[in-house]
Protein backbone atom coordinates (compact mmCIF):
# COMPACT_ATOMS: atom_id res chain seq x y z
CA UNK A 1 0.00 0.00 0.00
CA UNK A 2 2.80 2.37 0.92
CA UNK A 3 4.40 1.78 -2.49
CA UNK A 4 1.15 2.54 -4.32
CA UNK A 5 0.80 5.72 -2.30
CA UNK A 6 4.36 6.78 -3.06
CA UNK A 7 3.97 6.09 -6.78
CA UNK A 8 0.73 8.05 -6.93
CA UNK A 9 -1.28 5.01 -8.00
CA UNK A 10 -3.66 5.71 -5.16
CA UNK A 11 -4.19 8.41 -2.56
CA UNK A 12 -4.44 8.21 1.19
CA UNK A 13 -7.99 9.53 1.01
CA UNK A 14 -8.99 6.73 -1.39
CA UNK A 15 -7.22 4.12 0.74
CA UNK A 16 -8.77 5.42 3.94
CA UNK A 17 -12.23 5.54 2.35
CA UNK A 18 -11.81 1.96 1.10
CA UNK A 19 -11.07 0.81 4.63
CA UNK A 20 -13.97 2.80 6.06
CA UNK A 21 -16.22 1.09 3.47
CA UNK A 22 -14.86 -2.28 4.46
CA UNK A 23 -15.51 -1.46 8.12
CA UNK A 24 -19.06 -0.49 7.20
CA UNK A 25 -19.74 -3.78 5.50
CA UNK A 26 -18.23 -6.23 8.01
CA UNK A 27 -18.17 -4.43 11.36
CA UNK A 28 -21.63 -5.67 12.39
CA UNK A 29 -20.19 -9.19 12.34
CA UNK A 30 -16.73 -8.54 13.75
CA UNK A 31 -17.22 -5.63 16.21
CA UNK A 32 -13.54 -4.73 16.26
CA UNK A 33 -14.06 -1.02 16.89
CA UNK A 34 -15.42 0.97 19.81
CA UNK A 35 -15.14 4.25 17.95
CA UNK A 36 -14.79 4.91 14.22
CA UNK A 37 -13.38 8.31 13.38
CA UNK A 38 -14.30 8.59 9.70
CA UNK A 39 -14.10 12.39 9.65
CA UNK A 40 -10.81 12.63 11.52
CA UNK A 41 -9.23 9.86 9.43
CA UNK A 42 -10.22 11.44 6.12
CA UNK A 43 -8.94 14.84 7.24
CA UNK A 44 -5.64 13.30 8.27
CA UNK A 45 -5.46 11.43 4.94
CA UNK A 46 -6.17 14.60 2.96
CA UNK A 47 -3.39 16.40 4.77
CA UNK A 48 -0.92 13.62 3.91
CA UNK A 49 -2.04 13.70 0.26
CA UNK A 50 -1.53 17.46 0.19
CA UNK A 51 1.98 17.12 1.59
CA UNK A 52 2.79 14.42 -0.95
CA UNK A 53 1.46 16.59 -3.79
CA UNK A 54 3.80 19.36 -2.67
CA UNK A 55 6.70 16.93 -2.90
CA UNK A 56 7.42 16.85 0.82
CA UNK A 57 9.51 13.97 2.04
CA UNK A 58 7.24 11.57 3.91
CA UNK A 59 7.86 8.59 6.16
CA UNK A 60 7.43 5.10 4.61
CA UNK A 61 3.98 4.50 6.12
CA UNK A 62 2.59 8.00 5.52
CA UNK A 63 -1.03 7.81 4.45
CA UNK A 64 -1.59 4.20 5.50
CA UNK A 65 -4.60 3.67 7.84
CA UNK A 66 -4.30 2.13 11.29
CA UNK A 67 -6.55 0.80 14.06
CA UNK A 68 -5.60 2.00 17.55
CA UNK A 69 -6.22 0.00 20.70
CA UNK A 70 -8.53 1.94 23.00
CA UNK A 71 -6.00 1.93 25.84
CA UNK A 72 -3.91 4.70 24.27
CA UNK A 73 -4.90 8.32 24.72
CA UNK A 74 -5.69 10.22 21.53
CA UNK A 75 -6.49 13.90 21.98
CA UNK A 76 -10.22 14.70 21.90
CA UNK A 77 -11.20 11.14 20.86
CA UNK A 78 -13.02 8.75 23.20
CA UNK A 79 -10.64 6.50 25.13
CA UNK A 80 -12.48 3.95 27.25
CA UNK A 81 -10.09 1.02 27.80
CA UNK A 82 -13.18 -1.12 27.29
CA UNK A 83 -14.53 0.15 30.62
CA UNK A 84 -17.71 1.92 31.68
CA UNK A 85 -15.71 3.96 34.14
CA UNK A 86 -14.13 5.91 31.26
CA UNK A 87 -17.21 6.09 29.02
CA UNK A 88 -17.34 9.46 27.34
CA UNK A 89 -13.91 10.61 28.51
CA UNK A 90 -12.00 12.67 25.93
CA UNK A 91 -8.27 12.81 26.69
CA UNK A 92 -6.89 16.36 26.57
CA UNK A 93 -3.56 15.11 25.20
CA UNK A 94 -1.94 12.58 22.85
CA UNK A 95 0.01 9.58 24.08
CA UNK A 96 3.54 9.46 22.69
CA UNK A 97 2.60 6.50 20.48
CA UNK A 98 -0.21 8.55 18.94
CA UNK A 99 2.06 11.60 18.57
CA UNK A 100 4.56 9.38 16.73
CA UNK A 101 1.84 7.95 14.47
CA UNK A 102 0.69 11.45 13.58
CA UNK A 103 4.27 12.59 13.00
CA UNK A 104 4.67 9.72 10.53
CA UNK A 105 1.43 10.58 8.75
CA UNK A 106 -0.22 7.32 9.73
CA UNK A 107 -4.00 7.69 9.53
CA UNK A 108 -5.93 6.66 12.65
CA UNK A 109 -9.24 5.03 11.67
CA UNK A 110 -10.57 4.61 15.20
CA UNK A 111 -10.22 2.88 18.53
CA UNK A 112 -10.39 -0.89 18.87
CA UNK A 113 -12.17 -3.09 21.36
CA UNK A 114 -10.30 -4.79 24.20
CA UNK A 115 -10.75 -6.62 27.47
CA UNK A 116 -11.50 -4.01 30.13
CA UNK A 117 -8.20 -2.36 31.13
CA UNK A 118 -6.43 -5.04 29.06
CA UNK A 119 -7.31 -7.75 31.57
CA UNK A 120 -8.16 -10.88 29.65
CA UNK A 121 -7.31 -13.20 26.78
CA UNK A 122 -10.54 -13.09 24.79
CA UNK A 123 -11.94 -9.52 24.59
CA UNK A 124 -15.04 -10.93 26.32
CA UNK A 125 -14.28 -8.70 29.30
CA UNK A 126 -15.02 -5.54 27.33
CA UNK A 127 -17.90 -3.58 28.81
CA UNK A 128 -19.04 -2.96 25.24
CA UNK A 129 -19.50 -6.57 24.12
CA UNK A 130 -17.11 -9.11 22.61
CA UNK A 131 -15.23 -8.95 19.31
CA UNK A 132 -15.57 -11.92 16.95
CA UNK A 133 -12.74 -13.81 15.27
CA UNK A 134 -12.96 -13.29 11.49
CA UNK A 135 -11.91 -16.93 10.95
CA UNK A 136 -14.95 -18.18 12.86
CA UNK A 137 -17.33 -15.61 14.26
CA UNK A 138 -18.33 -17.87 17.16
CA UNK A 139 -14.75 -17.79 18.45
CA UNK A 140 -12.65 -15.28 20.38
CA UNK A 141 -10.14 -13.03 18.55
CA UNK A 142 -7.73 -13.26 21.48
CA UNK A 143 -7.19 -10.60 24.08
CA UNK A 144 -6.79 -8.22 25.38
CA UNK A 145 -6.10 -6.69 21.97
CA UNK A 146 -8.78 -8.67 20.15
CA UNK A 147 -10.17 -5.61 18.41
CA UNK A 148 -6.83 -4.78 16.83
CA UNK A 149 -6.15 -8.35 15.68
CA UNK A 150 -9.69 -8.81 14.33
CA UNK A 151 -9.46 -5.50 12.43
CA UNK A 152 -6.31 -6.78 10.70
CA UNK A 153 -7.65 -10.25 9.94
CA UNK A 154 -10.92 -8.86 8.56
CA UNK A 155 -9.06 -6.33 6.37
CA UNK A 156 -10.68 -3.42 8.18
CA UNK A 157 -7.18 -2.00 8.71
CA UNK A 158 -3.70 -2.91 7.42
CA UNK A 159 -1.92 -1.75 10.57
CA UNK A 160 -2.83 -1.76 14.24
CA UNK A 161 -1.41 -0.88 17.63
CA UNK A 162 -1.69 -3.23 20.56
CA UNK A 163 -0.35 -3.38 24.09
CA UNK A 164 1.12 -6.47 25.70
CA UNK A 165 1.24 -7.07 29.45
CA UNK A 166 1.17 -10.87 29.42
CA UNK A 167 0.56 -11.64 25.76
CA UNK A 168 -2.14 -9.17 24.69
CA UNK A 169 -0.45 -8.48 21.36
CA UNK A 170 0.97 -11.92 20.60
CA UNK A 171 -1.95 -14.18 21.57
CA UNK A 172 -4.51 -12.20 19.51
CA UNK A 173 -2.06 -12.26 16.58
CA UNK A 174 -1.69 -16.03 16.94
CA UNK A 175 -5.40 -16.85 16.94
CA UNK A 176 -6.22 -14.52 14.03
CA UNK A 177 -3.33 -15.43 11.70
CA UNK A 178 -1.70 -11.98 11.94
CA UNK A 179 1.68 -10.65 13.09
CA UNK A 180 2.21 -8.92 16.43
CA UNK A 181 5.30 -7.74 18.26
CA UNK A 182 5.88 -6.89 21.88
CA UNK A 183 9.05 -4.79 21.76
CA UNK A 184 11.67 -4.82 24.49
CA UNK A 185 10.28 -3.17 27.64
CA UNK A 186 11.19 0.51 27.39
CA UNK A 187 11.55 0.37 23.60
CA UNK A 188 8.24 2.15 22.99
CA UNK A 189 7.06 4.94 25.29
CA UNK A 190 4.26 4.20 27.76
CA UNK A 191 3.32 7.88 28.10
CA UNK A 192 -0.43 8.08 27.59
CA UNK A 193 -0.92 4.32 27.76
CA UNK A 194 -3.51 3.73 30.48
CA UNK A 195 -1.54 1.67 32.99
CA UNK A 196 -2.56 -1.87 33.92
CA UNK A 197 0.71 -3.29 35.22
CA UNK A 198 3.43 -0.70 34.78
CA UNK A 199 6.43 -3.01 34.98
CA UNK A 200 4.96 -5.36 32.34
CA UNK A 201 2.94 -3.13 29.94
CA UNK A 202 4.42 -2.48 26.51
CA UNK A 203 2.80 -1.04 23.39
CA UNK A 204 3.75 -2.57 20.07
CA UNK A 205 3.03 -2.91 16.35
CA UNK A 206 0.59 -5.32 14.66
CA UNK A 207 0.14 -5.97 10.93
CA UNK A 208 -0.37 -8.75 8.39
CA UNK A 209 3.29 -9.08 7.36
CA UNK A 210 6.60 -9.01 9.21
CA UNK A 211 7.91 -6.07 7.17
CA UNK A 212 4.80 -3.92 7.79
CA UNK A 213 5.15 -4.71 11.49
CA UNK A 214 8.80 -3.63 11.39
CA UNK A 215 7.97 -0.34 9.64
CA UNK A 216 5.33 0.42 12.25
CA UNK A 217 7.72 -0.62 15.04
CA UNK A 218 10.26 1.89 13.80
CA UNK A 219 7.61 4.61 13.56
CA UNK A 220 6.44 4.32 17.18
CA UNK A 221 9.67 3.35 18.97
CA UNK A 222 12.39 5.46 20.51
CA UNK A 223 13.44 7.30 23.64
CA UNK A 224 10.82 9.51 25.28
CA UNK A 225 11.73 11.80 28.19
CA UNK A 226 8.05 11.71 29.24
CA UNK A 227 8.41 8.02 30.15
CA UNK A 228 10.99 7.52 32.89
CA UNK A 229 11.29 3.83 31.96
CA UNK A 230 11.99 4.53 28.30
CA UNK A 231 15.38 3.23 27.10
CA UNK A 232 17.73 5.93 25.82
CA UNK A 233 19.37 3.99 23.01
CA UNK A 234 19.04 3.78 19.23
CA UNK A 235 16.01 1.88 17.89
CA UNK A 236 17.01 -1.68 16.93
CA UNK A 237 17.39 -2.04 13.14
CA UNK A 238 14.14 -3.94 12.73
CA UNK A 239 13.27 -2.80 9.19
CA UNK A 240 16.62 -3.88 7.79
CA UNK A 241 16.32 -7.23 9.54
CA UNK A 242 12.81 -7.75 8.17
CA UNK A 243 13.98 -6.91 4.65
CA UNK A 244 16.98 -9.26 4.83
CA UNK A 245 15.21 -12.14 6.57
CA UNK A 246 18.52 -13.89 6.98
CA UNK A 247 18.90 -16.70 9.53
CA UNK A 248 22.08 -18.31 8.18
CA UNK A 249 24.28 -19.30 11.09
CA UNK A 250 21.75 -18.16 13.70
CA UNK A 251 21.13 -20.40 16.67
CA UNK A 252 17.44 -20.88 17.41
CA UNK A 253 16.63 -22.30 20.83
CA UNK A 254 13.47 -24.34 21.31
CA UNK A 255 12.24 -23.90 24.88
CA UNK A 256 11.62 -27.40 26.16
CA UNK A 257 9.12 -26.28 28.80
CA UNK A 258 6.90 -24.40 26.34
CA UNK A 259 5.72 -27.37 24.34
CA UNK A 260 4.44 -30.88 24.85
CA UNK A 261 1.65 -31.68 27.31
CA UNK A 262 -1.27 -29.29 27.12
CA UNK A 263 -0.40 -28.12 23.60
CA UNK A 264 -2.92 -29.05 20.90
CA UNK A 265 -1.59 -31.56 18.29
CA UNK A 266 -2.23 -29.16 15.40
CA UNK A 267 -0.29 -26.44 17.19
CA UNK A 268 2.66 -28.77 17.72
CA UNK A 269 2.59 -29.99 14.13
CA UNK A 270 2.74 -26.45 12.68
CA UNK A 271 5.47 -25.53 15.16
CA UNK A 272 7.65 -28.51 14.19
CA UNK A 273 7.11 -27.76 10.53
CA UNK A 274 8.26 -24.17 11.05
CA UNK A 275 11.42 -25.40 12.77
CA UNK A 276 12.22 -27.59 9.76
CA UNK A 277 11.82 -24.62 7.43
CA UNK A 278 14.13 -22.49 9.57
CA UNK A 279 16.71 -25.26 9.62
CA UNK A 280 16.46 -25.49 5.86
CA UNK A 281 17.04 -21.72 5.65
CA UNK A 282 20.35 -22.18 7.42
CA UNK A 283 19.57 -21.79 11.12
CA UNK A 284 20.86 -24.16 13.74
CA UNK A 285 18.11 -25.53 15.98
CA UNK A 286 19.08 -26.28 19.57
CA UNK A 287 17.05 -27.22 22.62
CA UNK A 288 17.19 -25.04 25.72
CA UNK A 289 15.66 -25.48 29.13
CA UNK A 290 13.99 -22.87 31.30
CA UNK A 291 12.95 -24.79 34.41
CA UNK A 292 11.36 -21.83 36.19
CA UNK A 293 8.93 -20.95 33.41
CA UNK A 294 6.38 -23.27 35.00
CA UNK A 295 6.05 -20.74 37.82
CA UNK A 296 5.67 -17.75 35.49
CA UNK A 297 1.89 -17.89 35.28
CA UNK A 298 1.47 -17.99 39.05
CA UNK A 299 3.92 -15.11 39.52
CA UNK A 300 2.22 -13.09 36.80
CA UNK A 301 -1.20 -13.44 38.42
CA UNK A 302 0.25 -11.92 41.57
CA UNK A 303 2.43 -9.18 40.10
CA UNK A 304 -0.02 -7.89 37.48
CA UNK A 305 -3.05 -7.69 39.82
CA UNK A 306 -0.90 -6.12 42.55
CA UNK A 307 0.25 -3.35 40.23
CA UNK A 308 -3.27 -3.04 38.83
CA UNK A 309 -4.82 -2.60 42.26
CA UNK A 310 -2.56 0.38 42.73
CA UNK A 311 -2.79 1.78 39.18
CA UNK A 312 -6.58 1.57 39.06
CA UNK A 313 -6.90 3.49 42.31
CA UNK A 314 -6.83 6.59 40.11
CA UNK A 315 -10.38 5.86 39.00
CA UNK A 316 -11.84 7.54 42.03
CA UNK A 317 -14.72 9.50 40.46
CA UNK A 318 -13.12 12.80 41.40
CA UNK A 319 -11.22 14.28 38.45
CA UNK A 320 -12.48 12.47 35.36
CA UNK A 321 -14.58 9.52 34.30
CA UNK A 322 -17.75 8.18 35.82
CA UNK A 323 -19.23 9.47 39.08
CA UNK A 324 -22.13 7.65 40.72
CA UNK A 325 -24.17 8.44 43.84
CA UNK A 326 -23.09 12.07 44.21
CA UNK A 327 -26.23 13.11 46.07
CA UNK A 328 -26.47 15.73 48.76
CA UNK A 329 -24.56 14.64 51.83
CA UNK A 330 -22.93 11.60 50.25
CA UNK A 331 -19.30 11.23 51.32
CA UNK A 332 -16.43 11.03 48.84
CA UNK A 333 -15.76 7.51 50.01
CA UNK A 334 -19.34 6.39 49.38
CA UNK A 335 -19.22 7.93 45.89
CA UNK A 336 -15.95 6.11 45.16
CA UNK A 337 -17.35 2.80 46.35
CA UNK A 338 -20.50 3.11 44.25
CA UNK A 339 -18.71 4.40 41.17
CA UNK A 340 -16.20 1.58 41.21
CA UNK A 341 -18.94 -0.98 41.75
CA UNK A 342 -20.80 0.20 38.65
CA UNK A 343 -17.79 1.24 36.57
CA UNK A 344 -15.64 -1.88 36.80
CA UNK A 345 -16.49 -5.28 35.33
CA UNK A 346 -16.14 -8.63 37.02
CA UNK A 347 -12.59 -9.50 35.93
CA UNK A 348 -11.24 -6.08 36.87
CA UNK A 349 -12.79 -6.37 40.34
CA UNK A 350 -11.43 -9.90 40.70
CA UNK A 351 -7.91 -8.71 39.94
CA UNK A 352 -8.09 -5.61 42.12
CA UNK A 353 -9.18 -7.74 45.06
CA UNK A 354 -6.47 -10.33 44.33
CA UNK A 355 -3.84 -7.58 44.13
CA UNK A 356 -5.09 -5.92 47.29
CA UNK A 357 -4.80 -9.27 49.05
CA UNK A 358 -1.32 -10.05 47.69
CA UNK A 359 -0.04 -6.67 48.87
CA UNK A 360 -1.73 -6.68 52.27
CA UNK A 361 0.40 -6.92 55.39
CA UNK A 362 0.87 -10.47 56.57
CA UNK A 363 0.57 -11.85 53.03
CA UNK A 364 3.00 -9.60 51.16
CA UNK A 365 6.08 -11.83 51.57
CA UNK A 366 4.24 -15.05 50.80
CA UNK A 367 2.58 -13.74 47.64
CA UNK A 368 3.90 -10.55 46.06
CA UNK A 369 7.40 -10.98 47.50
CA UNK A 370 7.66 -14.59 46.31
CA UNK A 371 6.37 -13.63 42.88
CA UNK A 372 9.12 -11.04 42.57
CA UNK A 373 11.67 -13.73 43.34
CA UNK A 374 10.20 -15.96 40.64
CA UNK A 375 10.61 -13.03 38.30
CA UNK A 376 14.34 -13.06 39.05
CA UNK A 377 14.53 -16.81 38.38
CA UNK A 378 12.74 -16.45 35.04
CA UNK A 379 15.06 -13.65 33.96
CA UNK A 380 18.03 -15.84 34.91
CA UNK A 381 16.59 -18.70 32.84
CA UNK A 382 16.41 -16.37 29.84
CA UNK A 383 19.94 -15.06 30.38
CA UNK A 384 21.25 -18.62 30.48
CA UNK A 385 19.24 -19.70 27.45
CA UNK A 386 20.49 -16.72 25.43
CA UNK A 387 24.08 -17.87 25.95
CA UNK A 388 23.14 -21.00 23.97
CA UNK A 389 20.90 -19.42 21.33
CA UNK A 390 20.41 -16.07 19.57
CA UNK A 391 16.63 -16.27 19.81
CA UNK A 392 14.20 -18.60 21.56
CA UNK A 393 11.04 -20.02 20.02
CA UNK A 394 7.82 -21.73 21.09
CA UNK A 395 4.19 -21.94 20.03
CA UNK A 396 2.53 -18.62 20.96
CA UNK A 397 -0.48 -20.33 22.55
CA UNK A 398 -1.22 -23.88 23.62
CA UNK A 399 -4.43 -23.96 21.56
CA UNK A 400 -6.18 -22.25 18.66
CA UNK A 401 -9.05 -19.80 19.27
CA UNK A 402 -11.65 -21.10 21.69
CA UNK A 403 -15.38 -20.42 21.56
CA UNK A 404 -16.83 -17.22 22.95
CA UNK A 405 -18.23 -18.07 26.37
CA UNK A 406 -16.28 -21.33 26.67
CA UNK A 407 -13.95 -20.15 29.44
CA UNK A 408 -15.80 -17.10 30.68
CA UNK A 409 -16.66 -18.67 34.02
CA UNK A 410 -13.36 -20.39 34.63
CA UNK A 411 -10.72 -17.71 35.25
CA UNK A 412 -7.95 -20.24 35.72
CA UNK A 413 -8.54 -21.94 32.36
CA UNK A 414 -8.56 -18.51 30.75
CA UNK A 415 -5.28 -17.57 32.43
CA UNK A 416 -3.62 -20.77 31.13
CA UNK A 417 -3.90 -19.46 27.58
CA UNK A 418 -1.06 -17.04 28.34
CA UNK A 419 1.35 -19.68 29.59
CA UNK A 420 3.86 -19.29 26.75
CA UNK A 421 3.68 -15.51 26.38
CA UNK A 422 4.01 -14.38 30.01
CA UNK A 423 7.72 -15.21 30.60
CA UNK A 424 8.70 -12.57 27.99
CA UNK A 425 6.93 -9.80 29.92
CA UNK A 426 8.43 -10.92 33.21
CA UNK A 427 11.94 -10.47 31.81
CA UNK A 428 11.15 -7.37 29.72
CA UNK A 429 12.52 -8.92 26.52
CA UNK A 430 11.05 -8.82 23.00
CA UNK A 431 8.51 -11.27 21.58
CA UNK A 432 6.86 -11.78 18.19
CA UNK A 433 4.01 -13.98 17.02
CA UNK A 434 3.52 -14.76 13.36
CA UNK A 435 1.22 -17.23 11.58
CA UNK A 436 2.57 -20.76 11.19
CA UNK A 437 -0.45 -22.18 9.36
CA UNK A 438 -3.74 -23.80 10.32
CA UNK A 439 -4.24 -26.63 12.79
CA UNK A 440 -5.43 -29.78 10.98
CA UNK A 441 -8.14 -30.61 13.51
CA UNK A 442 -10.02 -27.30 13.43
CA UNK A 443 -8.64 -25.30 10.48
CA UNK A 444 -7.79 -22.35 12.72
CA UNK A 445 -4.57 -20.25 12.78
CA UNK A 446 -1.57 -21.26 14.86
CA UNK A 447 1.02 -18.76 16.10
CA UNK A 448 4.80 -19.17 16.19
CA UNK A 449 6.54 -17.17 18.91
CA UNK A 450 10.07 -15.76 18.64
CA UNK A 451 11.78 -14.22 21.68
CA UNK A 452 14.86 -12.00 21.51
CA UNK A 453 17.11 -10.50 24.20
CA UNK A 454 16.71 -6.95 25.54
CA UNK A 455 17.06 -4.39 22.71
CA UNK A 456 17.97 -7.10 20.20
CA UNK A 457 14.49 -6.86 18.67
CA UNK A 458 15.99 -7.06 15.16
CA UNK A 459 16.73 -10.75 15.71
CA UNK A 460 13.06 -11.74 15.92
CA UNK A 461 12.41 -9.83 12.70
CA UNK A 462 15.23 -11.73 10.93
CA UNK A 463 13.77 -15.06 11.99
CA UNK A 464 10.17 -13.96 11.42
CA UNK A 465 10.86 -12.69 7.90
CA UNK A 466 12.77 -15.85 6.98
CA UNK A 467 9.99 -18.11 8.24
CA UNK A 468 7.30 -15.98 6.62
CA UNK A 469 9.05 -16.20 3.23
CA UNK A 470 9.49 -19.98 3.51
CA UNK A 471 5.84 -20.48 4.48
CA UNK A 472 4.61 -18.17 1.74
CA UNK A 473 6.42 -20.14 -0.94
CA UNK A 474 5.05 -23.35 0.56
CA UNK A 475 1.46 -22.06 0.68
CA UNK A 476 1.60 -20.08 -2.56
CA UNK A 477 -0.52 -17.30 -1.01
CA UNK A 478 -0.82 -15.51 2.34
CA UNK A 479 -2.60 -17.47 5.05
CA UNK A 480 -5.35 -14.85 5.38
CA UNK A 481 -6.44 -15.60 1.79
CA UNK A 482 -7.92 -18.76 3.28
CA UNK A 483 -10.01 -16.90 5.84
CA UNK A 484 -13.75 -16.67 5.14
CA UNK A 485 -14.89 -13.66 3.12
CA UNK A 486 -17.13 -12.01 5.62
CA UNK A 487 -19.15 -10.05 3.10
CA UNK A 488 -20.22 -13.10 1.08
CA UNK A 489 -21.71 -14.75 4.15
CA UNK A 490 -24.31 -11.98 4.46
Amino acid at each position, binding site marked *: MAAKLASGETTSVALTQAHLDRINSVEDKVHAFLFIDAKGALEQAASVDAKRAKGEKLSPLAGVPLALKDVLAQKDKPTTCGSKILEGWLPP*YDSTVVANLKKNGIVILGKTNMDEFAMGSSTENSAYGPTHNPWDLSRIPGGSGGGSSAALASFEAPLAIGTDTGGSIRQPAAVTGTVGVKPTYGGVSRYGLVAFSSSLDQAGPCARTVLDTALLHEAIAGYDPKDATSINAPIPLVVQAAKDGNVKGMKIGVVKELNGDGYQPGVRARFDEALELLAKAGAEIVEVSAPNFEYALAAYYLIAPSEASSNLARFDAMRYGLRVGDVDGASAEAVMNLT*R*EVGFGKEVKRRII*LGTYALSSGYYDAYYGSAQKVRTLITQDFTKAFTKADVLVSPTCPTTAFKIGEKAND*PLAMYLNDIATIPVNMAGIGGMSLPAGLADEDGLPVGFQIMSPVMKDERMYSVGASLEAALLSKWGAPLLDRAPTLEASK
Partner: protein
Amino acid sequence: MSSLSRDEVAKLAGLARIEMSEEELVSLSKEFTVILDAVARVQEVASADVAPTSHPLSLRNVFRPDVVVPSLSPEQALSGAPAQEEQRFRVPQILGEE
Protein backbone atom coordinates in the same frame (compact mmCIF):
# COMPACT_ATOMS: atom_id res chain seq x y z
CA MET B 1 -5.03 -24.94 51.12
CA SER B 2 -5.48 -21.19 50.91
CA SER B 3 -8.92 -19.67 50.95
CA LEU B 4 -10.68 -16.41 51.59
CA SER B 5 -13.89 -16.15 53.55
CA ARG B 6 -16.80 -13.96 52.50
CA ASP B 7 -15.90 -11.54 55.31
CA GLU B 8 -12.27 -11.34 54.21
CA VAL B 9 -13.36 -10.52 50.66
CA ALA B 10 -15.67 -7.84 52.08
CA LYS B 11 -12.75 -6.33 53.99
CA LEU B 12 -10.56 -6.29 50.86
CA ALA B 13 -13.38 -4.76 48.81
CA GLY B 14 -13.60 -2.03 51.44
CA LEU B 15 -9.86 -1.38 51.19
CA ALA B 16 -10.13 -1.27 47.41
CA ARG B 17 -13.15 1.06 47.62
CA ILE B 18 -15.49 -1.18 45.68
CA GLU B 19 -19.06 -1.71 46.84
CA MET B 20 -20.04 -5.36 46.39
CA SER B 21 -23.30 -7.25 46.53
CA GLU B 22 -23.69 -10.26 48.80
CA GLU B 23 -23.77 -12.47 45.73
CA GLU B 24 -20.48 -11.05 44.42
CA LEU B 25 -18.77 -11.47 47.78
CA VAL B 26 -19.76 -15.13 47.98
CA SER B 27 -18.81 -15.97 44.40
CA LEU B 28 -15.45 -14.20 44.67
CA SER B 29 -14.66 -16.00 47.90
CA LYS B 30 -15.31 -19.34 46.14
CA GLU B 31 -13.17 -18.39 43.14
CA PHE B 32 -10.32 -17.27 45.35
CA THR B 33 -9.90 -20.72 46.85
CA VAL B 34 -8.96 -22.01 43.39
CA ILE B 35 -6.97 -18.96 42.29
CA LEU B 36 -4.95 -18.69 45.51
CA ASP B 37 -4.02 -22.36 45.34
CA ALA B 38 -2.70 -21.82 41.83
CA VAL B 39 -0.72 -18.66 42.55
CA ALA B 40 0.67 -19.96 45.86
CA ARG B 41 2.95 -22.17 43.77
CA VAL B 42 5.43 -19.28 43.64
CA GLN B 43 6.38 -20.17 47.21
CA GLU B 44 7.85 -23.50 46.05
CA VAL B 45 10.92 -21.86 44.50
CA ALA B 46 11.08 -18.48 46.22
CA SER B 47 13.86 -19.28 48.65
CA ALA B 48 15.58 -16.70 50.83
CA ASP B 49 18.69 -16.52 48.66
CA VAL B 50 16.82 -15.25 45.59
CA ALA B 51 16.74 -11.48 45.19
CA PRO B 52 13.36 -10.01 44.20
CA THR B 53 12.88 -8.22 40.86
CA SER B 54 10.40 -5.37 40.84
CA HIS B 55 11.15 -4.09 37.39
CA PRO B 56 12.82 -5.37 34.20
CA LEU B 57 15.15 -2.38 33.89
CA SER B 58 17.66 -1.54 36.57
CA LEU B 59 16.99 2.18 36.38
CA ARG B 60 17.24 4.54 39.26
CA ASN B 61 16.42 8.22 39.74
CA VAL B 62 15.57 9.24 36.20
CA PHE B 63 15.48 13.02 36.09
CA ARG B 64 14.54 15.50 33.42
CA PRO B 65 16.04 18.98 33.13
CA ASP B 66 14.21 21.49 35.32
CA VAL B 67 12.80 23.45 32.41
CA VAL B 68 9.28 24.85 32.21
CA VAL B 69 7.36 23.30 29.30
CA PRO B 70 3.77 24.00 28.22
CA SER B 71 1.18 22.05 30.16
CA LEU B 72 -2.60 21.66 30.08
CA SER B 73 -4.70 24.78 30.50
CA PRO B 74 -7.15 24.78 33.43
CA GLU B 75 -9.99 24.25 30.94
CA GLN B 76 -8.26 21.20 29.45
CA ALA B 77 -7.40 19.78 32.85
CA LEU B 78 -11.01 20.15 33.96
CA SER B 79 -12.47 18.92 30.67
CA GLY B 80 -13.15 15.43 31.97
CA ALA B 81 -14.29 16.39 35.45
CA PRO B 82 -17.60 14.90 36.60
CA ALA B 83 -18.34 18.21 38.31
CA GLN B 84 -16.55 21.54 38.55
CA GLU B 85 -16.96 24.90 40.21
CA GLU B 86 -14.97 28.11 39.86
CA GLN B 87 -12.24 26.43 37.79
CA ARG B 88 -11.81 23.69 40.36
CA PHE B 89 -12.81 20.03 40.66
CA ARG B 90 -15.98 19.84 42.73
CA VAL B 91 -15.87 16.72 44.90
CA PRO B 92 -18.24 15.20 47.43
CA GLN B 93 -17.75 15.85 51.11
CA ILE B 94 -14.42 14.43 52.29
CA LEU B 95 -14.50 15.11 56.05
CA GLY B 96 -17.21 14.04 58.48
CA GLU B 97 -19.76 16.50 59.84
CA GLU B 98 -18.90 16.18 63.52
